[in-house]
């Protein structure tokens, strides 16, 4: 085997979205050397697409807000299977993380008295999302990027990691290739932070970028770390449904936060009919009150369109299934109706939702200031991921940390909109801090060259097989199976059949072939991503089978109710001794009394 380029850092960060950048900045500030690997160019990670805002109890718009209310909202939204400690840290620390962004140059929209403006979002009791129009993710990633590049971080753009390297039980580095030339690289590190984001490309209809292939989930799993809550995949209620080429593209919840309403083909505003009991006291029961809420009336309760995403997505699916859908198989999301209420409605919509206005105009010939949008659910986010310690973000494997979407715990069974960007900041910072601490307390480990050679041989196999199957075909079939069998509505037999299909996909993936050479060869890259996609797809399916109840984002047609037996457990996925995937239920950490009281007080 040829020599590999070798790099050495105290801390290696895999991923360059919000969590990775924030971790890198923090580790660097702690005085250790930091390497950062990005699958794409710097500043293009999926964080850039986040639209609505960053949830933080700044109380700039409603002074009744504080960390306790944010904590209670997060736990209620997550159906109380969240890791309470993560939810607590998140609610307490998010405001400081947002203010820090401002100190680094972020320019948020302002209140009339010149403070950071906050908007309404689903499941949040008060207006809580700091935002910049509907391009908050761009503002966040650019601020972190522009701040981070002056902190001495070594950035490796367009590099993919294919395996974590271990010395005994500890992670001591990572092995990957650069996309441009296909050269293999060894990254030695005393601590590794996974910040690889989500798994959206395991599904056909998805709001995610091509690179959301569950790399961190898969790397951690194959290195022996536990994954939890993998059954909880968030289907965002509002993706575009037409034209077909943009199906799945996100339509921000901010549309509903600004007063947008959901109607079916009969013109009925259907969400009022389905308000869950645990949200009844917080939800408006008439249109007038709902409108007043979106316009800042503190005595009004929020409209039912702003219920949690899991619930709204299911209500939309039901409307469509029962024949009340739109011509292209969605429902209507209408913001243009506010012209009945506001004299400057058109200008207001363009100012608050500029990207949405542009997106529909450019791609769908729809002017959202004049006509409704057609929307339907799209795969958006995974609540499940690497099991981590709440305070340090270290996984079960020493030296391996995870933050952001690829880590789990904060969101429980359903994530509230806006809690992702704040999660990236709060736990990105913590992962960076504790990875740096770990690096200071430990020396570099030994790299096992035999393992490295084995990974390299495996990675090159598709080249020996130029008549093998097209990797894109396997990817497409896998996405179809997950979309149809492990989607919003699930049942035992469909998921069993999905496991059979996935087994076939594993076999096919082992025999795919690529043409051309190693120079920037997307066919080869796709072939290598299949292992990650298959790993997360299998984990989602097995966890969803194990949880025989409906809770949050997991809805089982065969077990449509919540079941007390599953109220205090996580599904846990581990790699068994002989490589088979194992799933079991393990008890959740018990919430301490002072937090039980907080949730009681905020019922």
């Amino acid at each position, binding site marked *: 085997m040829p020599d590999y380029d070798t790099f050495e850092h105290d801390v290696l960060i895999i991923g360059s979205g919000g969590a990775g950048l924030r971790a890198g900045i923090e580790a660097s500030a702690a005085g250790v050397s930091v390497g950062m690997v990005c699958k794409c160019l710097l500043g293009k990670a999926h964080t850039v697409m986040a639209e609505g805002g960053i949830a933080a109890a700044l109380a700039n718009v409603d002074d009744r807000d504080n960390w306790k209310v944010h904590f209670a909202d997060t736990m209620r939204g997550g159906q109380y299977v969240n890791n309470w400690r993560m939810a607590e840290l998140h609610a307490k620390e998010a405001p400081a993380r947002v203010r820090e962004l401002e100190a*680094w140059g972020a320019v948020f929209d302002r209140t009339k008295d010149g403070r950071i403006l906050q908007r309404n979002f689903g499941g949040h009791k008060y207006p809580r999302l700091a935002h910049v129009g509907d391009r908050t993710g761009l503002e966040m990633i650019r601020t972190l990027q522009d701040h981070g590049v002056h902190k001495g971080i070594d950035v490796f753009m367009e590099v993919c990691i294919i395996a974590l390297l271990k010395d005994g039980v500890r992670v001591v580095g990572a092995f990957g290739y650069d996309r441009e030339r296909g050269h293999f690289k060894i990254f030695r590190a005393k601590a590794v932070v996974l910040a690889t984001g989500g798994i959206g490309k395991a599904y056909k209809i998805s709001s995610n970028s091509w690179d959301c292939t569950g790399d961190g989930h898969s790397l951690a799993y194959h290195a022996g770390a536990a994954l939890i809550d993998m059954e909880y995949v968030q289907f965002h209620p509002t993706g575009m449904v037409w034209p077909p080429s943009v199906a799945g593209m996100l339509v921000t919840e901010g549309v509903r936060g600004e007063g947008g309403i959901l109607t079916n083909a009969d013109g009925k505003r259907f969400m009022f009919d389905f308000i869950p009991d645990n949200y009844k006291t917080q939800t408006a029961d008439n249109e007038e009150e709902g409108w007043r809420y979106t316009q800042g009336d503190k005595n009004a309760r929020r409209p039912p369109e702003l219920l949690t995403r899991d619930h709204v997505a299911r209500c939309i699916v039901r409307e469509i299934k029962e024949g009340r859908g739109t011509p292209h198989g969605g429902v209507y999301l209408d913001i243009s109706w506010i012209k009945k209420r506001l004299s400057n409605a058109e200008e207001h919509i363009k100012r608050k939702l500029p990207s949405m206005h542009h997106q529909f105009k450019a791609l769908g010939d729809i002017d959202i200031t004049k006509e409704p949008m057609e929307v339907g659910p799209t795969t958006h986010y995974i609540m499940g991921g690497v099991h981590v310690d709440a305070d340090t973000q270290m996984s079960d494997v020493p030296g391996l940390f995870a933050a952001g979407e690829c880590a789990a715990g904060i969101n429980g069974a359903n994530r509230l909109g806006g809690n992702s960007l704040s999660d990236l900041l709060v736990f990105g910072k913590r992962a960076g801090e504790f990875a740096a601490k770990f690096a200071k307390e430990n020396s570099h480990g030994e790299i096992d060259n035999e393992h490295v050679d084995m990974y390299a041989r495996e990675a090159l196999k598709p080249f020996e097989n130029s008549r093998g199957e097209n990797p*894109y075909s396997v990817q497409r079939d896998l996405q179809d199976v997950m979309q149809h069998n492990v989607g919003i509505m699930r049942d035992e037999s469909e998921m069993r059949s999905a496991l059979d299909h996935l087994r076939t996909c594993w076999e096919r993936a082992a025999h795919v072939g690529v043409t051309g050479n190693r120079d920037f060869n997307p066919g080869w890259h796709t072939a290598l991503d299949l292992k990650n996609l298959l790993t997360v797809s299998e984990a989602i399916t097995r966890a969803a089978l194990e949880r025989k109840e409906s809770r949050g984002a997991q809805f089982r047609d065969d077990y449509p109710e919540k079941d007390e037996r599953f109220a205090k457990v996580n599904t846990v996925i581990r790699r068994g001794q002989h490589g088979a995937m194992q799933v079991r239920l393990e008890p959740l950490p018990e919430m301490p009394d002072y937090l039980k009281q907080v949730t009681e007080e905020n019922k």
Partner: protein
Amino acid sequence: MSAQQQATFRIWRGNATAGEFRDYVTGVSEGMVVLDAVNHIQATQANDLAYRWNCKAGKCGSCSAEINGTPKLMCMTRLSDLPLEKPVTVQPIKAFPLIKDLLTNVSWNFRVKKRIKPFKPRPPDAPDGTWRMQQADIDRVQEFRKCIECFLCQDVCHVLRDHQMHDKFIGPRFLIHVAALEMHPLDTEDRIEELRNAYGIGYCNITKCCTKVCPESIQITDNGIIPLKERVVDKFFDPLGWFWRSLKRKSDSGNVNRET
């Protein structure tokens, strides 16, 4: 467009040393954008076709290319806006070195960004330890911060594209970056001397090509570059201003903020 319509895409294939246009025929349907067609060609006919894309929603700025000779994002260019009776040509942007197919080496842009003096806020001055800013005072900065770094403006700027003056001129993208910093109400850094020398703002002769291709409709020239040029002129070529500042410097020697 009917569902069965076929179209030909004439895509540049090759690397820095050799290459050619190759024709690919593929089915097209309502609502498709160029990136859909290119993705389909890659998945079915040319697995090793190299180009960048991420979000397919006009937000990440990765899929820049020249379509029928015009610099555009592939994800935001609808086939219904192109004449499909003849081949659609797709080729790499030209201001940067070619790596392979539609993929260029844009790393120069990341090095330039690093050279620009970072944001330096004044100390927080609101009672809660933060700042106050009025929306009206940040509208312009927010316009500049819409930039998705697609580098299409760099591609059409003739200082970079035709004259290859990458070592003397930072290009419209980074002039807008500097403008966003200079006009940020909290920023205290001074970048005017660099604008004139290291950043080479004088090379821009305001032909507005950059503004025309900006997918975010940022008024790069009128709102960004021209006001920066005025600041440079005020500082270096206005004798009254120069005299006044020299007096001010003497009377105000404790203030090292803006005029050092």
